[in-house]
């Protein structure tokens, strides 16, 4: 066991940095990953600095190297990675190549870290208080009385914005909500009294309203404690709304850097401009189809109607969960009806019932004139020709052993229809050429997989498509392409969409009608225009308020 780090040994106090020194300065950092016997660069010579009291955001899509960069800064690179060149300095103390023992004196003490997923980032078998106390103890001089640790830990939890700190102190992580866990992790990051906090996508696992509160709090901490913040995010909206300065990263390089106003006014890099354009909040209204004139839906014609749907689940501990409470829904023919809500709103349960995957306890669903609920399996199968479903995650919804050809032909085969040319035709409809026919899902990118999933859903020429968070797992730029594809397909084929999402920004781009849900019940329903600009319900207003990037 090493002795607890003593303050006098930390760079913070030995160097007594002059005000001009940046809290963190990274120069020419290059990091490689081992793949087989070769080294592949993940970060290629990045410069970055954070000044005292500054809020800096590092923006990038998946695979941009942003996470590797901050792992490098914290000395937390996995074993398969190595720093090829460059330096990392905290307040002008060069820590490049420091081993774990020496880095332990810097971590917590000088730099605090807020991880991405609060659900896996706390030790499940230790009480929260204990975990905060550790963070205090590791970073205070030895010999501090135990009671002081406890006091400091409670103080830290309060600073992180938790109210009932005594109670949280004695609870286990699983007894807290996602937002509270993230606050506990902020408390842990603050416990060592760091001068800079690095946050890796701290809110991407949280609901928008919770996200807003956490980000508000980080901004407040910066102001109150005068610490520097380095926020890593994929969401340009968040970065623009919250930071003083942003850096955009792509393929291991910084492609854009500057104060927010400058970037918004005129991004120098082509990539940043594309990102800005792709951001849903950038668009005032619904996307319009390129290819064809949108067929005017027959006024009053209803594609899908749900009435009084309810569903309760019995949990293992015999408690009862009301997943859905007398929900109604009407989808007009040829239009997109978005269902929005945060986690636990019941929107996925509703989608599952509409698709016939889940049986409702009460209520009915009609597809056109035909009743869908309570049908035996065989009759339900017949309705599948008219009603199809696209899943959230294209990485799990395609059988890994099937080629693209087999995947798209599967529904045709199931109904004894000829496949052949139809498969190529469908693939072309989602803008993929014949060269993809014999590939396996593992050989496709996320966006390509989702295109294949859409082609498969269209194979039987359905009239209604249920899309369950169908673009949520994709990067913003890919998301924009898929949304455009959906809009075009709708125009060409007169499809009706039920579009389930947690992202109000996306709703703006695609929806004609919107239904807002919370805790299994419908809060508000109406035309998109009215819901998004003049919501009647307080909760809808909160949701809209929480959407980042409203400034853009």
């Amino acid at each position: 066991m090493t002795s607890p780090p003593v303050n006098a040994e930390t760079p913070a106090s030995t160097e007594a940095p002059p005000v001009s020194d940046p809290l963190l300065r990274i120069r020419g950092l290059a990091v490689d990953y081992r793949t087989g016997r070769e080294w592949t660069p993940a970060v290629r010579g990045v410069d970055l600095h954070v000044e005292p009291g500054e809020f800096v955001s590092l923006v990038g899509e998946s695979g941009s190297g942003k996470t590797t960069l901050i792992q490098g800064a914290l000395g937390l690179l996995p074993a398969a990675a190595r720093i090829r060149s460059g330096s990392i300095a905290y307040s002008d103390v060069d820590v490049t190549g420091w081993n774990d023992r020496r880095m332990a004196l810097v971590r917590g003490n000088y730099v605090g870290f807020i991880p991405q997923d609060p659900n896996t980032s706390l030790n499940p078998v230790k009480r929260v208080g204990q975990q905060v106390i550790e963070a205090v103890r590791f970073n205070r001089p030895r010999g501090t009385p135990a009671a002081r640790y406890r006091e400091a830990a409670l103080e830290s939890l309060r600073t992180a914005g938790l109210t009932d700190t005594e109670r949280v102190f004695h609870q286990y992580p699983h007894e807290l909500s996602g937002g509270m866990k993230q606050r506990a992790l902020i408390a842990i990051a603050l416990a060592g009294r760091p001068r800079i906090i690095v946050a890796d996508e701290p809110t991407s696992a949280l609901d928008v309203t919770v996200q807003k509160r956490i980000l508000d709090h980080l901004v407040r901490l910066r102001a109150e404690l005068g610490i520097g913040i380095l926020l890593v995010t994929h969401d340009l909206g968040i970065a623009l709304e919250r930071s003083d300065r942003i850096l955009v990263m792509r393929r291991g390089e910084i492609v854009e850097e500057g104060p927010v106003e400058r970037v918004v006014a005129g991004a120098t890099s082509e990539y940043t401009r594309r990102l800005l354009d792709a951001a849903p909040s950038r668009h005032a209204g619904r996307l319009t189809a390129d290819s064809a004139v949108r067929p005017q839906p027959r006024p009053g014609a209803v594609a899908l109607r749900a009435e009084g749907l309810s569903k309760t689940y019995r949990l293992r501990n015999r408690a009862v969960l009301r997943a859905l409470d007398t929900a109604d829904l009407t989808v007009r023919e040829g239009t997109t009806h978005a269902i929005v809500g945060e986690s636990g709103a019941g929107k996925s349960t509703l989608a599952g019932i509409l698709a016939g995957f889940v049986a409702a306890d009460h209520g009915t669903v009609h597809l056109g004139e035909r009743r869908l609920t309570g049908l035996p399996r065989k009759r339900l199968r017949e309705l599948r020709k008219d009603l199809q479903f696209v899943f959230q995650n294209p990485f799990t919804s395609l059988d890994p052993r099937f080629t693209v050809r087999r995947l798209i032909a599967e529904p045709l085969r199931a109904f004894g229809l000829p496949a052949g040319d139809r498969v190529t035709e469908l693939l072309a409809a989602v803008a993929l050429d014949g060269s993809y026919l014999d590939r396996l899902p593992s050989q496709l990118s996320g966006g390509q997989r989702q295109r294949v999933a859409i082609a498969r859903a269209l194979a039987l020429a359905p009239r209604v498509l249920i899309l369950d968070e169908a673009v949520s797992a994709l990067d913003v730029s890919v998301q924009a392409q898929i949304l455009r594809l959906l809009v075009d397909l709708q125009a060409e084929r007169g499809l009706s969409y039920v579009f389930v999402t947690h992202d109000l920004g996306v709703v703006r781009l695609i929806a004609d009608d919107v239904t807002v849900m919370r805790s299994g019940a419908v809060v508000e329903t109406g035309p998109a225009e009215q819901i998004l600009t003049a919501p009647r319900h307080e909760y809808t207003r909160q949701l809209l308020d929480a959407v980042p990037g409203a400034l853009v």
Partner: protein
Amino acid sequence: MTAFASGWARRPVLVVAWLVVLVAIGWAVAPHLFTSYSPFTGDPSASFAPPGAEHWFGTDRLGRDLFARSVYGARTTLTATLLAVLIAFGLGAVVGLIAGFAGGLADTAIMRVVDVFLAIPSLLLAMVVVSVLGYSTNNIALAVGISSIASFARVMRAQVLTVVNQDYVKAAYGLGVGRLGVMTRHVVPNSLSAVIALAALEVGTGVLAVASLGFLGYGAPPPQPEWGLLVAEGRDYVAVHPYASILPGLALAAVVIATHRISTSFRKENHR
């Protein structure tokens, strides 16, 4: 082809493992190609010869060549193991598939029965079964096979349950594929890979179980060469003539270690 060759060159241990298994299979299929001695008749005047150029593993009390007995013993032991694994794999996979796919009452009933068989250690169960059936190598195979059905069933069921809850299975139902189609086209192929890795592992464990029962004397009667029995025969003279017991035992251990290594490589392929 070059990628294939370099792939193997990067894993020398795996190459050795495959070689060991292939040689063992060669011993079982065509023992006469590997030794010119008879496993049954020896030269009594040359009893207890130490290992050397003449007799690689030495000779036993009756002057029989122990290398020849080990080579011929591979047939008895490996055939019994193969039979055992086929029984366990075939029945276990079917039972596990039914339990996992049907769910509900059928699942509960099957799994309670599986619990019971798991409660009796498999060596003990095999001993009881073989005592009822009578001593012979075939019955050992049957006993080892029966006593491993439960663990195969459990792995298969767990795997089926994982696959059944995957989005792509739900998607197949949503596309209008029937239950039978979903089972044969999605569930079975995607579940089998894990069970096949277990089967490879079970070959090693099966060799051990067959040889253990042979060692305890429940297998082929003495003049027959069988790996477990060879160790048991040599054990009586271990103080003066240790090779008689240890060298056949090491051959056996090498085969088991090799199958474990191969099974691990299967598992890693699956995870990719």
